[in-house]
């Protein structure tokens, strides 16, 4: 299947967890690489306050990032990098960059990217404590909720879902990541499925490969493509039924979304 086949469509996913430590960035890039075999994929580090995607995607040394775009000092195209078969838009890590960035411009960035890609994945902030942190969930068509099979993570994942539905964003599914107890997960996933609106896309085992990949500055699917965790992420991506509206409509929606300036 060629990317051109999908050129008329774009769907925007926020990858969110509500809590740190679930492996959200690892998940975002893994899903992105898996989806990139069938689609033209753009991954955006929308966690502007605590960017870390650049360290996972061999982009630690790049000059222009989403911070510059959100500050109005660079065009979107200058912060888009071809890496691992995807377009990747990293965010910078400097405090000054964060201070100068206007998160409300994210909608314009997404609208611009939407014109020329099939799938946009927004790596979201770990908490829901600010407007900037919630904005990716507001802007997305659907959210992928990354969970660990623990009470705090499930509780926060439910919170993400309620935020999403409040903003008319659907749930594409849930991914259980960093799973250690193979025997318990089936019962937990079954019970959790009663509360989540989307399907359980995959159960990803805790993996030394994921840590090694991060240290190497590579996505898991590039660093350890044959690992069980990589297999599980491919399974998750395969379970996502991509295909929302056409790109013009999405672009219009983002341009018209009411997102006021910071007070």
């Amino acid at each position, binding site marked *: 299947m060629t990317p051109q086949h999908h050129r008329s469509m774009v769907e925007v996913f926020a990858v969110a967890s509500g809590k740190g430590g679930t492996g959200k960035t690892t998940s975002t890039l893994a899903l992105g690489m898996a989806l990139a075999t069938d689609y033209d994929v753009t991954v955006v580090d929308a966690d502007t306050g605590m960017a870390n995607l650049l360290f996972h995607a061999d982009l630690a040394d790049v000059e222009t990032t989403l911070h510059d775009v959100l500050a109005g000092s660079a065009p979107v195209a200058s912060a888009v990098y071809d890496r691992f078969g995807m377009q990747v838009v990293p965010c910078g890590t400097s405090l000054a960059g964060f201070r100068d960035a206007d998160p409300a411009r994210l909608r314009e960035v997404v609208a611009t990217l939407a014109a020329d890609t099939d799938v946009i994945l927004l790596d979201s902030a770990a908490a829901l404590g600010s407007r900037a942190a919630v904005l990716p969930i507001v802007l997305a068509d659907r959210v992928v909720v990354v969970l660990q099979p623990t009470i705090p993570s499930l509780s926060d994942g*439910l919170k993400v879902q309620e935020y999403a*539905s409040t903003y008319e964003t659907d749930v594409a599914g849930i991914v259980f990541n960093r799973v250690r107890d193979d025997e318990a997960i089936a019962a937990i996933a079954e019970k959790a499925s009663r509360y989540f609106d989307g399907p359980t896309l995959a159960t990803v085992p805790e993996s030394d490969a994921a840590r090694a990949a991060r240290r190497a500055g590579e996505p898991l699917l590039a660093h350890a493509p044959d690992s069980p965790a990589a297999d599980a992420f491919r399974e998750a991506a395969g379970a996502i039924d991509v295909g929302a509206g056409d790109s013009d409509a999405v672009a219009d929606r983002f341009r018209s979304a009411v997102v006021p300036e910071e007070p």
Partner: protein
Amino acid sequence: MKLPRGVLQRQRVVADLATPLSNALDAELTGYARLESQDALLLAADGVGVLTFDAGVPAVAYHTGTDAGGPAALADLAVAGPYRIELFELEQAALEQVHEAGDLRVPPGMPAERLAGDPDLADRTRAAAPARAVGTDEGVPGADEPGAVEAFLDDEAKIAAIRERARDEAQRRAAEWGFEDVSRGDAGR
């Protein structure tokens, strides 16, 4: 469970219990944490959770509102934060009697997993446990049963309360943050 008050070491409101649990471990605290959810909605009864530490390693858990002990008390505590937490230091001798109460014991790594969702901290705590007199997870009630997460998911009233609170918060913030044009509010609920 009766404990002397002890000497207050820290007092703060936290969203995530990983930091205080980690601090207690690193400081090898002998004493207890008094945990109070800031969200009365999520607890059927008022009350506070108490988690004791032996040289930084969690030993006993109890909830004064639900009268639950051990892993069940952790399940009652493991609602979304924020929590008001106070850490008190005690003499070892003051804890001995409480720590003999088998039904209140929790496996060393369980609070980090259940309350903080932090497997790395749980590993670190378990690694510290044998050398610090609390023992391993083996033989402690509830050590290997994943029941707490399942029990949490079976508690439909608690889940409904978490969702309702999140929905209210999202709608309130939608207005505060100027997202109301894309929010459907109560419609369709």
